[in-house]
């Protein structure tokens, strides 16, 4: 892996900050009743998606779960259109019909945003199948929560991907809990990265709180998959600071556990690295942070000032 440039370090910091501030604002808007339904925040897991982002090619595809806001931001999508979707407005990425869990951007090769645990895995495998069918040398990254790793269709997809040597990179975001059930209470044999072994799929476990570990592993895994060797599994150990969704008080874990992870906060790790390497000063980083707060506020204002979908939209987009 080549060394990161100064601007890449700043990009990493900015994206992670953008996700965190955006999610904090989402939480606030949820509390105010502007965002409804289910809303799953990405706070604490920023290093995963931003680390992978640094290794992605423009025409590669991405599929993820319902904890997707961070993924969309990392894919370079517009904050205001994401926030407009969260608030159910016509200007949202899905015209207000998808909401937090179902957002897509075909032009950015972002294929959701899927609300059914595990269902995104065969779908991502099918997108990888298409890359191979079209022989375009692109790959599909499919994100999987630790909870989905006990879902049957995930293994059906692994089997097909290995059988047909599809360019599929599976990234397990192991944030320790599938809703309120810890991994060791749900998975017999908690080494999720080994769950492709029966199909001959190589797996690796990495520290997902440290973006630099993620970049290194994701680059290697991406290269492996792109070279035509078939699928690969990365298990990224991470942690969500908030509950499973907005309505979850997260009483299944201790405050001490949460504090322990907060002490190795992924954004702080990046910040320290940047200052240590003298890429930017604390003050300069604060300035970036303030700009991001402003950008997020603009997005929120845009969303709240946007119109709700017109009534006639109820009946559009059912058929093409």
């Amino acid at each position, binding site marked *: 892996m080549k060394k990161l440039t100064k601007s890449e370090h700043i990009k990493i910091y900015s994206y992670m900050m953008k996700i965190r501030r955006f999610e904090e604002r989402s939480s606030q808007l949820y509390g105010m009743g502007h965002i409804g339904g289910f809303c799953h925040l990405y706070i604490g897991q920023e290093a995963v998606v931003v680390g992978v982002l640094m290794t992605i090619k423009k025409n590669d*595809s991405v*599929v993820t779960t319902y904890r997707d806001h961070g993924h969309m931001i990392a894919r370079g999508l517009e904050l205001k259109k994401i926030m407009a979707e969260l608030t159910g407005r016509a200007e*949202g*990425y*899905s*015209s*207000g*019909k*998808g909401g937090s869990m*179902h*957002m*897509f*951007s*075909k032009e950015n090769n972002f*294929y*959701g*945003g*899927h*609300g*059914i645990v595990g*269902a995104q*895995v*065969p*779908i*991502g*495998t*099918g*997108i*990888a*199948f*298409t*890359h191979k*069918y079209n022989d375009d040398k692109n790959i599909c990254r499919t994100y999987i929560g630790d909870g989905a790793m006990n879902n*049957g*269709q995930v293994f*059906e*997809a692994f*089997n*097909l991907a290995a*059988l047909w040597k599809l360019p599929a990179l599976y990234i397990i975001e192991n944030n320790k809990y599938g809703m309120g059930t810890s991994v060791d209470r749900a998975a017999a044999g908690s080494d999720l990265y080994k769950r492709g072994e029966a199909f001959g799929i190589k797996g690796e476990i990495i520290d997902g709180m440290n973006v630099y570990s993620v970049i290194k592993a994701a680059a290697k895994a991406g290269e492996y998959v792109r070279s035509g060797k078939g699928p690969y599994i990365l298990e990224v150990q991470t942690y969500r600071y908030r509950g499973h969704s907005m309505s979850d008080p997260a009483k299944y874990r201790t405050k001490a556990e949460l504090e322990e992870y907060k002490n190795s906060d992924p954004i702080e790790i990046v910040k320290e690295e940047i200052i240590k390497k003298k890429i930017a000063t604390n003050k300069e980083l604060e300035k970036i942070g303030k700009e991001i707060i402003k950008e997020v506020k603009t997005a929120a204002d845009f969303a709240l000032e946007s119109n709700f979908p017109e009534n006639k939209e109820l009946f*559009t*987009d*059912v*058929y*093409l």
Partner: protein
Amino acid sequence: MSIEILMPALSPTMTEGNLTKWLVIEGQEVKAGDVIAEIETDKATMEVEAVDEGFVEKLFFKDGDVNIPVNKPIALISGDKKLKSKKINEKTGTVDKKIKESKKSSTQPIEEDVPVDNEHITMREAIRDTIAEEMRKDKKVFILGEEVAEYQGAYKVTQGLLDEFGDKRVIDTPISEQGFTGLAVGAAFKGLTPIVEFMTFNFSMQAIDQIINSAAKTLYMSGGQINCPIVFRGPNGAAAQVAAQHSQDFSSWYSHVPGLKVLAPSTPFNAKGLLRSAIRDPNPVIFLENEILYGLKGEISSDDNFTIPFGKANIAKEGTDTTIVTYSIMLQKTLHAAKILKNEFNLEIEVIDLQSLRPIDSETIINSVKKTNRIVTVEESWPIASIGSEIVNIIQKNAFDDLDAPIIKVNSADVPMPYSSSLEKLYLPQIDDIVKAVKEVNYI
């Protein structure tokens, strides 16, 4: 003593078979378990074994004879040794050669089902040909499913496709419905046009989440960005004595779902026109075939681009006295019932074959009822919340004052499908049930 060898029933739906070739000749000695002939069924070419030992006394059919009814004697096996010497003497030197040739050719791939008359083909050929024609026109179209490639299709629908298009586009999958259905949906999101063959629609229940939650809803959930051009096809409903888990009718299940289109062909003619529409459509389409109809022969359009639009019913028979709305396999029974009703009660029945279940052609049904003032629905599905139930709603809303009698629905019994042939017959709508319902709405 001689024993008759009968044309065996080698599949649940087989009513007749073709004698592909004899592997024995008259006079030859056979032991129990020896393969004596190759029989082509509605599904595959199978080997027939001798169940007793003896000498082949008589072969009643020759190689290539077709449409031999099940249970018809095809050969006579005798214990008489005199016969052996006589026959062998006559044919000295030819026995070994003929058997050798037969063995050699029996390992060759199954011959394509080339129809004798191009305008008059079976349902399975109509479906296969349409898939092939569309695959020739559009490289994005591919087919996947269990046994579709090397086995040539569990019901021979995909016969020959692997040879023509190769394993990149004709893909055998493991028995993994949820996995390969989800994979196909992902491929459709990304721009390909998959045709997913379910060996039967009963197995689609394993994958119904991907069909409904992923294929049907994503266009809406993405605000119109991501469509899903995909066809899910395969036999639906009852075959013959395959019991509860393999006999379910899914027409009402899938027709319930916005985002899906649902088609149910009844003849080779509409199978071609409807399937072509399905493959070319940018939306997910459920294409409900019927195993018993696969062997049904009929005319087809000679136009290679012939399509039947979604939401267009066919008036299979015009009439003035009672409307019967039906689809898929029940069309044949309904037409039969219409004949009886004409002969015995002088009733002119109008038979509407829906063809498309979603969207449904309300207009044709309403107009017909306005003319006949009486309506019966006939379908294989269970009665609760069936297609017939929806038609009842359409009529009460749009032609309430035109009705001269309550609407009667003829459905399968509201129980799981039984195995026993006697109970199975009771379970399914029969011609008599249709006649009875029509008599009832006519107060006869």
